[in-house]
């Protein structure tokens, strides 16, 4: 194995499919150090908390997307699910429902969307990209039709406090993100669900021949993604103080970029929740750096596109070399 190949396939933590690649960690450290020197505002508590708050929403949705991508799937409908879940909870609260039932209904909506995606992909064998592109359009469209394009202002204090409140000096929303990642970090390596996600992504046929009901598990995988997207939608509404049918438009780009940057392979079978967390930090540090450098937001979009391309290319080169070696 040549040195480049060895580096691309090396690991600094974890084994096999759940290894963390040193390239990702190195890139994160380099960006951090560069930003520390480039801007006096970067390494301040306020700025770092802002970065953390900004990445929370994308982060929660990215946890579910990581599971889908490791399983060899894809979910483009997360942004629409986020908007629909926020709208549903806001509508129910406006109609006199309590926060608990409204949140439960929103998460249930995410689960239902995941079930639809999972059914079409697992049982009707429709390509995940096309399926979730279609559900993206359908859900977003329905959110506009039902709300007539109007936003709902959130007045419920409990809900808003999730977006603005703090506990022991740490924003509650950040604690929710940490809790979500701890749960996934436990589930993925230690439960049958996690094991089958890797198995299905690595070789779905082998998983099926091993007696695993791959269709049912695929359904569970898309349901997980739908549920995390709905939770992310609730948190987004908590932060912005309103629920809009146009909310979270284009969030898919950030979510998928963070997941791929974190080392999940589009071919399936590889990736970790910790990798996604590092990918998120890297992506949002770059965003923050561009903002601090006063780069116009349109250009930030261009940079994000390039980062996604670079991450996919890195994955392609790495797996290509694995095949050769």
């Amino acid at each position: 194995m040549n040195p480049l190949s060895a580096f691309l396939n090396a690991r600094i933590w974890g084994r096999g499919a759940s290894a963390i690649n040193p390239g990702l960690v190195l890139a994160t450290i380099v960006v951090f150090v560069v930003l520390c020197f480039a801007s006096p505002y970067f390494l301040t508590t306020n700025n770092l908390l802002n970065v953390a708050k900004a990445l929370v929403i994308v982060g929660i949705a990215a946890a579910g997307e990581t599971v889908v991508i490791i399983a060899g799937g894809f979910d483009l409908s997360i942004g629409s699910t986020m908007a629909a879940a926020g709208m549903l909870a806001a509508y129910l609260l406006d109609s006199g429902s309590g926060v608990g039932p409204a949140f439960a209904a929103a998460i249930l909506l995410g689960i239902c969307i995941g079930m639809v995606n999972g059914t079409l992909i697992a049982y009707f064998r429709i390509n995940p990209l096309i399926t979730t592109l279609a559900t993206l359009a359908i859900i977003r469209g329905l959110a506009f039709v039902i709300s007539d394009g109007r936003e709902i202002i959130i007045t419920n204090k409990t809900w808003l406090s999730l977006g603005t409140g703090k506990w022991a000096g740490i924003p509650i929303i950040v604690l929710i993100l940490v809790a979500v990642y701890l749960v996934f970090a436990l589930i993925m390596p230690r439960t049958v669900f996690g094991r089958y996600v890797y198995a299905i992504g690595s070789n779905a046929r082998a998983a099926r021949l091993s007696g695993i009901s791959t269709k049912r598990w695929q359904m569970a995988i898309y349901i997980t993604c739908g549920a995390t997207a709905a939770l992310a939608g609730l948190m987004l509404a908590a932060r912005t103080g309103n629920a809009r049918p146009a909310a979270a438009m284009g969030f898919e780009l950030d979510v998928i970029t963070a997941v791929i940057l974190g080392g999940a392979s589009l071919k399936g079978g590889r990736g970790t929740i910790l990798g996604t967390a590092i990918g998120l930090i890297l992506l949002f540090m770059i965003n923050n750096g561009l903002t601090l450098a006063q780069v116009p937001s349109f250009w930030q979009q261009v940079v994000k596109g390039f980062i996604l391309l670079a991450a996919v290319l890195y994955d392609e080169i790495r797996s290509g070399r694995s095949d050769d070696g």
Partner: protein
Amino acid sequence: MMSIQPSNSDTNETGAATGARPPLIELSGITKSFGNVEALSGVDLQIGEAESVGIIGDNGAGKSTLVKVLSGVYPPTNGTIRFRGRDVRFNSPLDARRNGIEMIYQDLALCEDLDVAQNIFLGREIRKNLGPFKLLDRRAMSRAAAEEIANLGLDFDVEREVGMLSGGERQMVAVARALQFAPSALLMDEPTAALSAEKIRRLWELITDLKSRGVSILLVSHRFTDILSICDRIVVVRGGRIAGQMQPHEHPPAQTMAMMTEMMTGDRIMTEASA
């Protein structure tokens, strides 16, 4: 001109060893269709306890379909499967596994991103209780997998990714996976395709050992030498039907080969023995 009739010296009409105990597996009138194509047409076959049966046939003869019906990959279109004398229906590989029928697939069906132990226990994970939760007992699985690998006379780390192993090592992982759960029948589809001569010899030793422990073997191969070296009975499949059966050492090797070729192709072959 030599005969291509099945040898019935100590077997019944479907070829299984006769005796008081029912055969381990009994297929009756098995048909498998894919759309308009009939891959198997009324196959009758019995496999006795601790018997090794070799299935041979040309490409597309239906031999792989036959083992896939037995392993639950393809539920039969018609016909019945009896296991230890009772009717069973294998709708999935899990059903076959529950009856102690293990299969080693031609492409091995391993997950390359998972490690050896994870592959061996895939679909049958050992779990431990942690309060209300059931978590994977990774240590127990690694230990058991390491023991199985050592029992096979092999020496490699069970926490290595399967994608990093050589072809022969992967083959042995597939064998270890099949043997981990003490099967009563082991089905193998072209098991020697990726093996060196040394590994093939090791595999034959394993099969002999398994037979002595009462495990029935069904070996699908297009290599005459594989079948001749290990099987008690040879079943030739042609056009989705059983073309004939014989015992490997009933005739001189050249004549056996000629008979098998005749059954496989349907053409008469002249040999010194038959001339």
